[in-house]
């Protein structure tokens, strides 16, 4: 489903966001990035990041302390 997966587990703020931004750069508009994170702060941060940048937060889940985000690149 995702065009690229970014494993940001174990990384703390702001690294998951910075690495997600980098990964999105390499994608085309409309493609989907899946991000895995263990940072509980990433829940609020990925929402804010997507609202500000116009990328779409398609889905977010949490299971066993791992947060998964599906982000569709804008454009």
């Amino acid at each position, binding site marked *: 489903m995702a065009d690229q997966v970014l494993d940001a587990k174990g990384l*703390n703020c*702001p*690294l998951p966001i910075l690495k997600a931004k980098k990964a999105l750069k390499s994608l085309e508009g409309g493609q989907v990035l899946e991000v895995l994170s263990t940072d509980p702060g990433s829940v609020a941060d990925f929402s804010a990041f997507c609202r500000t940048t116009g990328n779409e937060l398609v889905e977010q889940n949490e299971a066993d302390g791992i947060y998964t985000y599906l982000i569709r690149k804008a454009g």
Partner: protein
Amino acid sequence: MSSTDLKPGIDPNTMSIIVTKGSLDWAYPPFILSTTAAAMGLEVTMFFTFYGLPLLMKDLSLQVSSLGNPAMKMPMMGMHMGMPNIVSAIPGVDAAASKMMKNLIKKKGVASIPELRDLAVEADVRMIACQMTLDLFEYSKDDMIEGVEIGGAATYIEVATQSHINLFI
């Protein structure tokens, strides 16, 4: 006055930060905010002055001090321990506290300052070094990383008039 004489509005996606502190702990807020803002599409300028200036040096040897910092309580043996000033003042205690902090940073997956600074450079964050501070503390532009501009108060104020968010850290 014709409408062409009016100053254009300030782009909301612009931010400036005055960086005045250069200890290991205080280096974090400006670099975390500048890299994150850049990742969120903002144009960011950092102005390094006084003790913030060493954060631009090629060789970073950042330290933290518990002296005069009652809020600095490190997790140790299942609790949080502060350091009385009289202990903090003993030679070697700052170095030990700095080592402990760096270990914690690594263990918790927090980025190092050199890593965040590299990311800021990569994200085209504009960095201005204060000329007066360079003179005052006898630093040279050659001591600093590539791409740093030199400027003074007027340079910063011009940036601030064109930035929607202006922070002093």
